[in-house]
């Protein structure tokens, strides 16, 4: 499996996800989870020294900050004063230095806006492609996962209701609906067209492809 993506409901249920990850033999992982206490440290340099697995040079810290778009931050800045989005990006910068095989991002969309979610996913996807890393996103935003990820595990009320490639999700729409779980908006629309007009549009995650398909079917 190239990437593993979990989709849950609440961060509170994270302990359950951890069990799922252990069951799947995922080790050597970096869990990127927001915790304000982590940033109570006098400077960025000490933050990196405390949280990184090995000693690290100032040059490496600066490179890592630049990668996640935090170029303007200085090694002596107090990370506690950063905005929540910058703190989340700081966790990613720190994780990149740790160079794990698996990166698990917990609810990035709660801290980052669309621009920064795209930026971070672009960086991580590049790393994943070039260095064969696994990226796992845990979130309740099914649209984000369906758009960005290859595989989906949908975890609802303590059970896994879907575990497969995203391409097959539409075939399991009844399972999701029976579990009161929302379909991605794009699939919800395709399903509604089928129900109301008896027209079968091709399931897709790309809105431009959907638009072309609608044009062909009008």
């Amino acid at each position, binding site marked *: 499996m190239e990437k593993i993506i979990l989709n849950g409901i609440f961060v509170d249920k994270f302990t359950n996800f951890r069990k799922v990850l252990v069951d799947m033999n995922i080790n050597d992982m970096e869990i990127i989870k927001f915790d304000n206490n982590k940033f109570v440290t006098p400077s960025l340099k000490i933050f990196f020294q405390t949280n990184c697995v090995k000693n690290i040079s100032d040059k490496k810290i600066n490179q890592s900050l630049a990668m996640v778009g935090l170029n303007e931050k200085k090694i002596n800045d107090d990370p506690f004063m950063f905005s929540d989005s910058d703190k989340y990006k700081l966790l990613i910068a720190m994780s990149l230095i740790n160079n794990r095989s698996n990166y698990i991002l917990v609810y990035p969309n709660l801290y980052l806006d669309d621009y920064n979610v795209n930026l971070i996913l672009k960086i991580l996807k590049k790393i994943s492609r070039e260095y064969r890393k696994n990226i796992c996103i845990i979130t309740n935003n099914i649209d984000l996962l369906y758009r960005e990820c290859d595989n989906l595990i949908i975890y609802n009320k303590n059970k896994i209701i879907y575990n497969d490639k995203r391409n097959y999700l539409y075939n399991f729409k009844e399972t999701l609906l029976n579990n009161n779980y929302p379909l991605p908006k794009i699939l919800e629309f395709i399903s*509604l067209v089928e129900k109301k007009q008896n027209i079968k549009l091709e399931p897709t995650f790309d809105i431009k492809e959907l*638009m072309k398909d609608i044009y062909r079917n009008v």
Partner: protein
Amino acid sequence: MTTALEIKNMSFKYNTSYIFNKFNLKVKKNDFLYLIGLNNSGKTTLINIINGYPCDGDVYINGLELNNKNKDKIFNFTNIIDKDKVNKCKLTNIIDKIKELSGDKYDYYLKDYKLLEVCNNNYNQLHLLDKIKVFLFISLLENYQFLIIDEIIDMLDSSDKYIVYKLIKKYQRVFKKTILIISKNADGIIYAKRILILSQGRICFDGSINDVDKKDNLFNDLSIRLPFIVDLSIKLKLYDLIKEIYVDEKRMIKDIWKK
């Protein structure tokens, strides 16, 4: 008619750089606003300032100047609902509180808000979603006229967001509240009357959902992902398959295939 909120020539500096420089904003009473505040746009500072944090310039809430003398009166009128308030709420008996606020209609409200199953529980034992629903529900029924909802709806999944936005919209109309929703994304813009984008300390978009496609490039430049139905409307308009921005999928489907 007094405004719910008026900010005049407000400036705020952190260290040496301005977060806001002569910022202006006017919110009419009974309006339903959705403010998209991108990361580091100044939205937390803006909330702090509305909460009474000192700044240069003038802030008026319900026609009263925001200062120490008027603070109590102002915060009887305004409630800022954020993650901390929702999580640290000390409410012990949900059902009694809802009965107290809604009288003999409490059963209807609980059903409407899908809270019947959880209303006998202790607030602290609820899941986050139900906490948000209970807190919002009570705030909408309370005497506050101006509710500022800061980012908490972002924490919900799409179906729960839909429920919450629908209810806010309904109760805003019924109880004539002024609502300002602050979010880092555009998920709920279809429910609001007025949409604002805050970027680098200034308002760079101020309009309704029908104005969005005129400024489509601005949303693209700022990488703001539009709600699916709005995004699809803009794209289908280019193909001349529809003429307007839709907020309802069923109506859109009916109109596309009616020919």
